[in-house]
């Protein structure tokens, strides 16, 4: 830390700063608690115990508010936390890889790849004449979007390697080109879309966590844990990369290997999130910033803490999104930017005053 004058006596602020993980865990728990109470349906204390009171073999074990709590609200809160964590982590990884605080997972083409696939699915598969059965329709869009996200990252990696050897700047430039291409395809789909398809498309791009369910949550949890396991082994190398590609290579970092892993991890984490929830911007960009402005640039701290900050941000945004206009719902992407951006600016200003950013 670079503060010029050390305080003579550790005040509450410095003591909290020394334990960022505990502070964030406490804030996250508080947010989960608030989120559990918010919503259109009143949940009573008994609903919490309802699943345990049910005897085996019942046809429909839960009903009314207990069903809402266990099958809508809990998975949705879980999804908000996990998606926020996934976006925060992929943001930290991309900013570390590009050594640029302006980088965000979208630069790797994840978001535009998913959006491109989603647009193609909405416009062409739905227009193919045969109405897709309801059960398929539910899986079709997320699956296509996920494939699109992963596909673009794969193509990006290949193309960048082929065109510009192994430089990370080359990756960034190729990413920009692929993003433009994807935007053009989305634009074409927008032009070809019918009125209804256009509206579906625009709501998809605004993002929503309404698709939460326990199986999705389980899959995402497994993915996030696996990613975390791998990330743990990359963070030292990422700290070295902060010195520059050449310097990192000189002290024994396999930049090519590192780059490959970061692309895979960001594609998986961010791709899954985007595929299920539509485009939720801002979190991946902002969460690492918030962390860095408090505890400095050490990736070993920035990566895990960005997950916590991302989780908190998205949970707050989603809780607002689903409870401000009851019984209607506002797309969550609107809230992440609407409230996130001013908050972020205020934070930057505060950090600047303290001489940390």
């Amino acid at each position: 830390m670079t503060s010029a004058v050390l305080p003579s006596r550790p005040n509450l602020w410095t003591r909290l700063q020394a334990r960022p993980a505990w502070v964030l865990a406490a804030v996250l728990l508080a947010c989960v608690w608030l989120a559990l109470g918010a919503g259109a349906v009143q949940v009573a204390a008994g609903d919490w115990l309802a699943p345990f009171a049910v005897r085996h073999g019942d046809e429909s074990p839960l009903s009314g508010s207990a069903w809402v709590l266990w099958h809508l609200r809990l998975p949705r809160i879980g999804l908000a936390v996990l998606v926020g964590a996934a976006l925060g982590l992929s943001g930290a990884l991309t900013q570390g890889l590009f050594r640029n605080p302006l980088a965000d997972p979208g630069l790797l083409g994840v978001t535009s790849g998913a959006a491109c696939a989603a647009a193609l699915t909405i416009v062409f598969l739905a227009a193919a004449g045969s109405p897709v059965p309801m059960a398929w329709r539910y899986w079709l869009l997320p699956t296509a979007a996920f494939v699109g996200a992963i596909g673009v990252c794969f193509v990006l990696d290949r193309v960048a390697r082929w065109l510009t050897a192994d430089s990370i700047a080359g990756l960034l430039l190729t990413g920009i080109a692929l993003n433009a291409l994807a935007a053009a395809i989305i634009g074409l789909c927008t032009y070809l879309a019918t009125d209804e398809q256009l509206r579906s498309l625009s709501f998809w791009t605004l993002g929503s966590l309404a698709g939460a369910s326990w199986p999705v949550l389980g899959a995402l949890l497994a993915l996030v844990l696996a990613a975390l396991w791998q990330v743990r082994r990359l963070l030292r190398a990422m700290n070295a990369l902060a010195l520059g590609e050449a310097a990192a290579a000189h002290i024994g970092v396999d930049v090519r290997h590192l780059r490959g892993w970061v692309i895979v991890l960001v594609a998986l984490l961010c791709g899954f999130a985007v595929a299920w929830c539509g485009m939720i911007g801002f979190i991946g960009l902002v969460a690492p910033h918030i962390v860095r402005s408090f505890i400095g640039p050490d990736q070993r701290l920035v990566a895990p803490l960005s997950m916590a900050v991302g989780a908190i941000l998205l949970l707050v945004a989603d809780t607002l999104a689903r409870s401000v206009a009851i019984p209607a719902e506002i797309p969550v992407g609107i809230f992440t930017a609407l409230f996130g951006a001013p908050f972020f600016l205020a934070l930057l200003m505060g950090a600047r005053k303290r001489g940390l950013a």
Partner: protein
Amino acid sequence: MRKLNHVGLHRRACLRAAAALAASCTPLAWGADKAAKRRIVSIGGALTEIAYALGAGSELAGVDSTSLYPAAATRLPGVGYARALSSEGILALAPTLVVATEEAGPPSVIRQIQAAGVPIEVLAAHHRFEGMLSRVTRMGELLGRRLDAQQLTQRLQADWQAARQPVLARKEEGPQVLFVLSHSPNQVMVGGKGTAAEAMLVQAGARNAVQAFSGFKPLTPEAVVAVQPDAVLFTQQGLEAIGGIEGALKLPGLLQTPAGQKRRIVAHEALFLLGFGPRMPQALAALDASLQQVMRTKA
């Protein structure tokens, strides 16, 4: 200290009792509600209109944001736009039935409502009079008002015949009409093949001027000049947004067509004109009358 503790205990006991009471009451309340009366959530302006026309307006518990008619519907709790529904919001209205058009979504929300044990009926949306009649019949079955639905269907058929009468009686070819959907002067879309506007125009004996593409597409001035529409049809909301008839005449290329030169501009309220609800016969009659009127005016 002891006193504080006592208060704390007392409060905790009260809270526990309240929680237990709430827990025991909630399931009862849900059940009682169901038995007492139907609570219907209607998603889609036409379906809401049908529900009111069948006399089931008082059984509606919530509507989506496209349900703008009759005025009473706008005072019901709104569940948001039909494509961005909220499952918890809908379930909070404790519905016994959800009726929705095909456009309702996202699919995950429809699934969740089904999984919650609330019957949800998705009705097909055909841009045809017969499709509207079958929606009325189905709504009658769903709302337990078959007889009302039968009477309404008969009345609608008679009204429809009456509205179609002058159209069928005419010998001369109908006008070429350009349908414009615009919500700001610099974003103008025109309706091609397969749109609800075309369906209404054809029923009114007119021809849709745009046959080159289907759906709504941005307008190109050259295309407007090329198709030479005899009249332009707007939604009321669209015409107001664009600045009335004077604003409409400033649309690029329009003054090079008969429609622009003779100021043949027609506008009707969007849900009335394109809603394909029970006001469809009136909408057809109104559209026909207004088209006939502008075609008679000499510039």
